[in-house]
């Protein structure tokens, strides 16, 4: 079962795997499991949202009307567009189009920055209005009991999501740097794929957060 030939042919093959296919399968499986843990991490906040929406239905309904729908909608479009561009970057590297791949990654990272900028402006408004979590709440327009908890959930979930945007962006910057150094090609592109998967998760979480917080 010796596989020294395989190891000599592919520098990316670790010593404890026999074939690159097996190693790629392992890495992908590991990534999907990791994404499952991320979903469960957010699940706790979604549970909190559900419970408090049930308890304080009126306050949640009213408070959600006071979010900036246009900012949220723009951010949704920005993130969905970035998901497309990262998927295209993955396609490009599989076609050995390194420059196109790099360009698409730059576009994705730019989208992430736009998202964060819009989010920062939204946060700034909330701070000015006093629409803040828990004890810090002093927003005069929504006075129904439980409104402070709406903003607790809002800041916790969008805050945790923003951290994920920053992490995802950092991963994509690292992938971009390696693309520019010519590390990836149609024969080795797993890190591009994994970075893209993580970015899709970031996008997906937002696709749930947007309607829950802004629309309903």
């Amino acid at each position, binding site marked *: 079962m010796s596989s020294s030939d395989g190891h000599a042919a592919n520098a990316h093959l670790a*010593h404890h*795997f026999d074939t690159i296919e097996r190693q790629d399968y392992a890495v992908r499986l590991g990534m999907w499991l990791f994404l499952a*843990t991320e979903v469960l991490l957010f*699940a706790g906040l979604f549970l909190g949202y559900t419970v408090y929406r049930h308890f304080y239905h009126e306050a949640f309904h009213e408070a959600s009307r006071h979010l900036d729908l246009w900012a949220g909608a723009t951010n949704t479009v920005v993130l969905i567009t970035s998901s497309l561009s990262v998927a295209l970057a993955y396609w490009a590297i599989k076609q050995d189009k390194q420059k196109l791949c790099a360009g698409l990654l730059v576009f994705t990272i730019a989208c992430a920055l736009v998202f964060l900028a819009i989010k920062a402006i939204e946060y700034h408004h909330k701070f000015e209005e006093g629409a803040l979590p828990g004890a810090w709440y002093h927003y005069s327009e929504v006075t129904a009991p439980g409104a402070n908890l709406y903003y*607790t959930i809002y800041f916790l979930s969008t805050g945790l999501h923003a951290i994920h945007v920053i992490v995802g962006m950092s991963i994509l910057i690292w992938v971009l740097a390696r693309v520019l150094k010519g590390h990836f090609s149609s024969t080795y592109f797993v890190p591009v794929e994994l970075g893209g998967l993580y970015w899709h998760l970031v996008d997906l979480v937002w696709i749930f957060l947007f309607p829950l917080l802004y629309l309903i």
Partner: protein
Amino acid sequence: MSQPNQLSDDNPVYPAVNYLNADRGVWSWLTTVDHKRIAIMYLVSVLIAFLLGGIFAMALRVELLTPGPTIMGANTYNRMFTLHGVVMIFLFMIPAIPGVFGNFCLPLMLGAKDVAFPKLNLLSLYLYWTGATLALAGMIMGGTDTGWTFYAPYSTTTPMTLFPVLLGVFILGFSSILTGLNFIVTIHTLRAPGLGWMRMQLFVWAIYATSIIQVLATPVIGLTVMLVGIEKVGHFGLFDPSRGGDPVLFQHMFWFYSHPAVYIMVLPAMGVISDVIAAFARKNVFGYKAVAYSSLGIAFVGFFAWGHHMFVSGQSPTDDGAFAAISMLVGVFTAIKVFNWVATLYKGSIVVGAPLVYICGFLFFTVFGGMTGIAVATVSLDVHWHDTYFVIAHFHFIMVGAVIMAFLAALHYWFPKMFGRMYHEGWAMVSAALIVLGFAATFIPQFLVGNAGMPRRYYMYPERFQSLNVASTAGASLLAFGFIIIAIYLIYALIHGRLAGDNPWDSRGIEWMTTSPPDKHNFHETPVITVDPHSYQNPGEEVEHVVI
């Protein structure tokens, strides 16, 4: 009855170059990605944690010798039981068997060279160290008096320092997640040729089921403890009733992890028993598939049983009933395992040794702890027993009676593989007997005193409970004495123990097919597996079924 070593090598060999001495120096250990070295570092770490947790436990038992103050103040007492719980659960019990024996044995049992992600494995260890340091630092910086459960709103309003401990638990959670993720991928991708799923050793099945829980449940506790931390520091109101928050929500989120966490601790223990019992009965494990699938069954059902911790938290009777019924299913799966283990012993060629004594202790305590588990899952009974020493005794029967017995069985069983040397069998038997008896003497009185109404976590108690408390403390001293003996003869055996040889137990496990201690790369040639696991059809024959 046959002697343990009658079939093994007459002239055992200690390989001149092995994983312990292939690279030298502290730095080579701290930067290693070898799963076996990482396992040894986990072993040292969890044993230190166990020592700490044990010292705190002894301090508690001494304090409870008299109804009034004995050796410490009430505040110190509160901090002490919190320390005992946090250290034993997060620093010892959860990483113990997966971190040590999972890391050491899993790749060997799969015929693999390492786990799927060796660097991630080392990262898990560093995260464990970081989390442990933070948690302990938090304890020293003033301590926490909430108990290991961190129940809000007390935890969010207590004047004590909580944040470092919570952050520590959060980071320990990530260590646990990465270990579980690594093991799942390893089992999926690194099985040797011929090693199908139904040929895996039962320890591997148990680790697989455990890893699923680690991956799926741990993120929730991570989030929950961070929410408590944010609540305490930032007053976000999430669990604070004065701001509209719901403390019961905290309990749901906490137990959604912490009940499955019981199975993170117990399932690997059950896996150890399956493997060791086969070696000591010289017999195939009876009902292999039933034992394998019941691990997955426990992992699955365990996710839906958390509400039995909350029978008196204002749940609806419908919820109570549903959680009670689901909790009892755990008993069904556990019973499947116990019956199969006993059937494995039946008509086996039993070899008497220290690991077997621990297995017998395990079987008795698991049945006893499991039966009382059914009892406390019964809503009407639990209302009486809730938060009494009855519950304490019940879960210590599972966590100490089952997990520590299995940990000790594993430690004795795989010690020769890890270090290439044998421990002293006579002393091992003496301490095993001491520990089994000491354990029973510690916790059976706690069932009685709990049933009589003594609540948990109370600093003082009425005088009529004293005799049972004294009995419990006496039992704890026996336990401690047993552990001291083990520490002495195992450390002695590390240096002076006689050479073990490759397979001192004549086990059919794949991990015994390599040298003791193993080579840095485990096997010189990847083994090819041609027969079913635990294959003892022809006891006494040299192992031929694995082509190396």
